[in-house]
């Protein structure tokens, strides 16, 4: 049995058995949930399908959310990529478009998979689906990489938090990016230790990020933080695959995130009392919506 108390535990066990983290997590979860591995795999495959459907829907959508604050940006991004106007390369631009798409579908009351939360639901699928497309990877491998993301996410949830109300946005979009980075490394053939470094580097980049949703709605800045979270994941994965290591071990980074989250004032933890939510524009939006 795996305790999910440390990411290094996952890495060491995977190394010892000569397995990928995803295989280890799937085996362990099948045992703990007393279900065959095939069933868990199928359930995860169904989630991947919902993710892909949400991405496809959001990329062509023009509708707005109930508040009017979000909707249509993914479509703009996609059109720009389709027109060959990508500034930072196709992989990144495609990833951004999908992250926006899924987050917008969420804001517009469409169907998504919380990963790990609804607010951060675009990050993991955007990274994995884009890598799949660009590298012609099998669906099976992408499904498996979701087990890696989930295994690491369980450690983060146990040792720190994955909720904006408890730990700020570092705990939501930060955790999602860290999970996506590790999954991307595994998907692209990196070692379990590289997955851990990618996870650490993605999380380090957003330590301290507060949760400050305008008018208390999961829209501004959330939708665009899905795009930046996905980019963050790609950056960390790229560095890890190049052999770059995180000086601070991943479990200590998670400890730091927890301490920072605890120290964060309540006004910056989903209460919509501070940060961007407290700007003049945000207050005007909140007034208009409440009216």
């Amino acid at each position, binding site marked *: 049995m795996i305790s*999910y108390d440390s990411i290094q535990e996952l890495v060491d066990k995977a190394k010892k058995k000569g397995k990928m983290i995803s295989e280890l*997590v799937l085996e362990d*979860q099948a045992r*703990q*949930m007393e279900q065959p591995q095939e069933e*868990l795999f199928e*359930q*995860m495959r*169904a*989630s991947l399908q*919902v993710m892909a459907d949400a991405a496809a829907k959001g990329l062509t959508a023009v509708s707005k*959310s*109930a*508040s009017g*604050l979000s909707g249509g940006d993914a479509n703009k991004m996609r059109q720009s990529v389709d027109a060959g106007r990508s500034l930072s390369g196709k992989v990144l631009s495609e990833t951004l478009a999908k992250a926006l798409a899924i987050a917008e*579908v*969420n*804001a*517009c*009351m*469409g*169907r*998504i*998979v*919380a*990963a*790990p*939360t*609804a*607010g951060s*639901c675009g990050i*993991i699928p955007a990274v994995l689906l884009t890598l799949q497309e660009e590298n012609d990877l099998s669906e099976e491998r992408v499904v498996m990489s*979701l*087990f890696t*993301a*989930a*295994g690491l*996410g*369980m450690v983060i*949830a*146990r040792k720190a938090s*994955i*909720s904006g*109300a408890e730990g700020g946005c570092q705990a939501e979009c930060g955790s999602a990016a860290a*999970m996506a980075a590790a999954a991307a490394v595994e998907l692209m053939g990196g070692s379990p230790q590289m997955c851990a470094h990618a996870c650490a580097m993605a999380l380090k980049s957003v330590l301290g990020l507060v949760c400050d949703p305008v*008018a*208390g*709605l*999961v*829209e501004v800045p959330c939708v665009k933080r899905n795009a930046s979270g996905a980019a963050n994941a790609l950056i960390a994965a790229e560095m890890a695959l190049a052999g770059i290591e995180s000086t601070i071990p991943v479990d200590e980074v998670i400890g730091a995130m927890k301490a920072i989250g605890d120290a964060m004032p309540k006004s910056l933890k989903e209460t919509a009392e501070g940060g961007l939510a407290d700007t003049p524009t945000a207050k005007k939006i909140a007034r208009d*919506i*409440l009216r």
Partner: protein
Amino acid sequence: MNVFDIIGPIMVGPSSSHTAGAVRIGKIARAVAGGQPAAVTIELYGSFAQTYKGHGTDKAIIAGLLGMAPDDERIKDSLELARELGMAFKFKKSHNKEVHPNTALISAVDQTGKKTIVQGSSVGGGRIVVNRINEINVKFNGEYYTLLVPHNDTPGMIAAVTNLLADQGINIAEMNVYRSHRGGEAMMVIETDQAVKGELVSLIEAVNKVKKAVLIKPIY
């Protein structure tokens, strides 16, 4: 916790607490009312009251009352659907410092005029806690098959009901008895490991001094 708590649930956005959890509170209210009510009044507290329009909390609660699950894509059209199906609804913003910030109190009236009340709070990640049924304060989360057994607070009631469960080989995961005051209205809340069938509910209702028993199927 397992992998599907982290990658999952599949749900309709935008917020697990304000949308998915709200659907579940509505679902419990439907079960307690014994089906789709004729009319409901929904009081929203705290952040539910502040943000319900933007988060679609109103649509989510109505969707639950109509029997939908949190991943049903019709949630966003639930208000129109309720009108078509003839369920009248009204929303009110309320204040109460005592309750959890994401709380809804649903008063439902059925075709015969019978009134039921359910109050529930959405406590994060789409999970809920039910904290009031009619006039009695309770606490359960809908994870198990849950039996609500209102009765008069007299000796022997609990044994009579639990014996019926034991006869059917049903194991009690958790059981609590709540009452308004000694000797007054009381309610057993029994959560079971195994599925409870309708026949058993009838048997429980046949026990002397038991009023109507309600079965709530797991909502997760």
